[in-house]
């Protein structure tokens, strides 16, 4: 019997007042904290008689250490960092300046280089970074300001008073599998905050609670997502230059699926090694429920070009992260009574450039300016925080996203239609055939097994689990081992399935239990059970979870809600 995590009821919780609580210590949350500290310091220097305190500003981070849940390609467009910390290049951990770039279209055995790199994929002036290292550094800057980062604490639910967000409840610690208190039980805190800032990354669980409660997404396109599955490799020197950037489209995906790969080169730790960051982003709007994004990456590595690059190398890390593709039209309102939403949680990601870090940072800065106004005016109602919405709309965030506002929607009917729309949008300033292309949620594209060829057709090589040769390709569990993920085992399942009957009686028949395939961490398993009508029942391995949220996004019945497990658990994305 599965017991799911939820905040315990009927217990007394410690109450703690706060000025600002930032949920999530990624690039958006850290930039927000840093900018807020800068503004307060400047204010205090100018107004000796009305000092503002930084003591009651908190960042909640569910990872045991700052940065351990941060994963990205990653390329950093330095625009927002130059605004936040001019001269940051001198001290930030940057692996290499982009020196060389290429875009390829892959076929099974061959490749075609795009004669010119499309403007949105030109990366000169950007840096190859490890987001994990970069955010660790940002975290140290935040701590220098005197703002407290609570690592190992997740936001488990929002607190409300009518239509106002009044705070955040942190996770209950020391709850066993059955939901009972263990001897080390510690209730979650109620942080009663004037301003709550959600910077949880894509598909944030508190963001989801907020959007659902106030129906915030009603006028937006449904958010669409991709899942990026990444491996970090150490390869012999000479295979790829530090700062070399390669994008590929095409194989192993067919023209029907949206997605592509990245390959970035960084200097290695020794003189003989280079580090290769490679990953494959698969749009979570594919049709065949048997498709497995981790398998897609394995197939991709078998391409002669990639296999040669990796030959003799060693895979050292693995991870996965979802990313919001939906663009400008999918962004819900980002400010209201007591709350603001940043970064990937809001959907500030440029899917044409495959970049969101610079937008996350910028959104954090703008939210900090608004939070600062709220503190000086002592008003954090929508009247004050609404300024964040306007700041976003008059900033270069909108300017950048507006140009690609219809990009991903253009691909809903496959690659050729997508390329047509993209071309058209490029010459019409992002408009294309109409100002706003509508979209369907990704999971609505999933088709039932009876509507699909039994052998998988052209997609056959993307379906089902990868076997792995142990050298170039890996099965999912082996990959997963390299994510370093770890959780307290004796706790309720944090993958909340609202109706397991659907899993056991309906989904298994109709879709063949796609959770087993789309989850890049083997959390979901259908185990044999003669007592079930279809001979199987759903079983969870929550401690395998890498916190990518793909299940919450891609499940065709939308009955899975990802909630944070006990704080401190999760992947260990050192160097990712």
């Amino acid at each position: 019997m599965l017991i799911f995590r939820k905040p315990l009821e009927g217990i007394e919780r410690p109450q703690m007042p706060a000025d600002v609580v930032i949920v999530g210590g990624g690039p958006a949350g850290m930039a927000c904290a840093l900018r807020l500290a800068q503004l307060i310091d400047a204010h205090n220097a100018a107004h000796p008689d009305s000092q503002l305190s930084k003591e009651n500003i908190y960042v909640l981070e569910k990872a045991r250490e700052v940065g351990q849940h941060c994963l990205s390609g990653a390329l950093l467009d330095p625009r927002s960092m130059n605004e936040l910390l001019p001269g940051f290049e001198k001290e930030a951990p940057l692996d290499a300046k982009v020196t060389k770039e290429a875009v390829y279209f892959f076929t099974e055995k061959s490749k075609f280089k795009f004669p010119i790199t499309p403007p949105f994929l030109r990366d000169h002036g950007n840096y190859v970074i490890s987001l994990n290292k970069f955010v660790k550094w940002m975290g140290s800057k935040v701590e220098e300001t005197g703002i407290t980062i609570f690592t190992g604490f997740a936001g488990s639910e929002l607190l409300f008073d009518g239509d106002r967000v009044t705070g955040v409840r942190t996770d209950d610690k020391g709850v066993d599998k059955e939901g009972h208190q263990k001897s080390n039980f510690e209730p979650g805190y109620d942080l009663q905050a004037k301003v709550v800032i959600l910077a949880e990354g894509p598909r944030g669980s508190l963001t989801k609670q907020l959007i659902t409660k106030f129906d915030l997404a009603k006028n937006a396109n449904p958010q669409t997502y991709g899942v990026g599955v990444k491996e970090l490799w150490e390869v012999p020197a000479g295979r790829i230059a530090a700062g070399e950037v390669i994008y590929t489209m095409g194989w192993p995906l067919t023209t029907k699926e949206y997605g592509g790969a990245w390959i970035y080169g960084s200097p290695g730790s020794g003189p003989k090694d280079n580090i290769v960051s490679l990953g494959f982003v698969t749009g979570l709007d594919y049709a065949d429920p048997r498709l497995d994004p981790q398998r897609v990456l394995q197939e991709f590595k078998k391409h002669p070009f990639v296999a040669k690059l990796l030959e003799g190398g060693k895979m050292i890390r693995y991870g996965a992260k979802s990313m919001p593709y939906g663009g400008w039209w999918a962004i819900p309102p980002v400010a209201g009574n007591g709350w603001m939403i940043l970064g990937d949680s809001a959907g500030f990601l440029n899917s044409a450039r495959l970049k969101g870090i610079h937008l996350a940072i910028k959104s954090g800065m703008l939210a900090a300016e608004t939070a600062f106004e709220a503190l000086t005016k002592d008003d954090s109602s929508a009247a004050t925080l609404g300024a964040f919405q306007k700041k976003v709309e008059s900033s270069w965030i909108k300017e950048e996203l507006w140009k690609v506002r219809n990009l991903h929607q253009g691909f809903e009917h496959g690659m050729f239609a997508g390329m047509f729309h993209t071309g058209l949008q490029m010459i019409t300033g992002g408009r294309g055939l109409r100002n706003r292309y509508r979209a369907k949620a990704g999971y609505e594209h999933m088709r039932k097994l009876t509507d699909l060829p039994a052998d998988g057709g052209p997609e056959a090589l993307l379906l089902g689990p990868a076997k792995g040769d142990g050298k170039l390709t890996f099965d999912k569990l082996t990959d997963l081992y390299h994510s370093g993920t770890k959780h307290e085992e004796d706790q309720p399942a944090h993958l909340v399935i609202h109706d397991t009957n659907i899993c056991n009686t309906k989904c298994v028949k109709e879709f063949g239990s796609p959770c087993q395939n789309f989850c890049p961490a083997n959390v979901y398993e259908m185990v044999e059970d003669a007592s079930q009508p279809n001979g199987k029942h759903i079983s969870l391995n929550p401690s395998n979870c890498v916190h990518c949220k793909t299940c919450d996004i891609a499940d065709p019945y939308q009955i899975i809600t990802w909630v944070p497990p006990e704080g401190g658990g999760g992947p260990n994305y050192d160097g990712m």
Partner: protein
Amino acid sequence: MLDTILVVVEQREGKLNRVSWETITAGQTIAAATGWTLEAAVVGGSAAPFAAEVAAKKVAKVYAVESPKLEPYTPDAFTVALKQFLAAKQPKLVLMPHTYQVRDFAPKLATAMGRTVISDCIGFKHENGKLVFTRQMFQGKLAADVSFTSDAPWFATFQNGSFRGDKAEAGAGAAPIETVAVEIADGVIRNKPQEVFKEAKQAVDLTQAEIIVAVGRGIKEQKNIEIAKQLADALGGDLAASRPICDSGWLPMDRQIGSSGQTVAPKLYLALGISGAIQHIVGMKGSKTIIAVNKDSEAPIFEIADYAIVGNLFDIVPPLTEEVKKAKAGS
């Protein structure tokens, strides 16, 4: 009347809990800072012998709060006894160690007297005549200063190790001891104490085992684990499992081998129906000899096995057990 600090020391099963000395030190330190008087109390069926022990320390007075109904310990009796005693004595501050027993009765006692407890403190400050206690929040990431706004008596408990027990100052002479008999009416005690629960020692230390028989998902059903157990018994080894088995509750967690369980290196490791995912292998790859039984000839466990048996464990294990038994009987 001078303000008084009262330290309630803890005795249990005929012994003074050592952590009580830490609380005495805490009381002495606060008394030095505030100039208040320090007294101590022991509660129990016959508290006097413990009171004598405490009286050797630098305290103004020691009370032995006694009633036959205080033995064995029950939260009801302790609450009634202490409430009576405190109401008569009117101390300003009551200090206790943050032990399981105190955690059990202190909230009840404070509530019965309409007061609150500042629990699990790690220190105190005395600033401008104000007494402030320090508690940890967010798993020690923050230290909160907490003070009382209510009337006395104030209750506070100190975390283990907050003060040094060996620093408790001895008194110039033995402090006077006063025995206080408390009345506990019939019917007050609703608790029926059972035998004292001791956390079961880990039943098995697999890291010391020389022979381990481990089962994986191939065992299919909980009842089949008996097959593996018989083999383990015949070999004189211990039974272990891969994660799915312990996760299903078929075997306790302390028998789980692998990255989320124990790491073992026995002389002989028999893997029955274990596919050999890397998460399991990291926990047993140091074994001297590995024998693996699996239906799937491509199971990764065979890559590290010294002896590979491709076949159904239900066909292989029972006869193997019989052979082991025969061989052992013959030797």
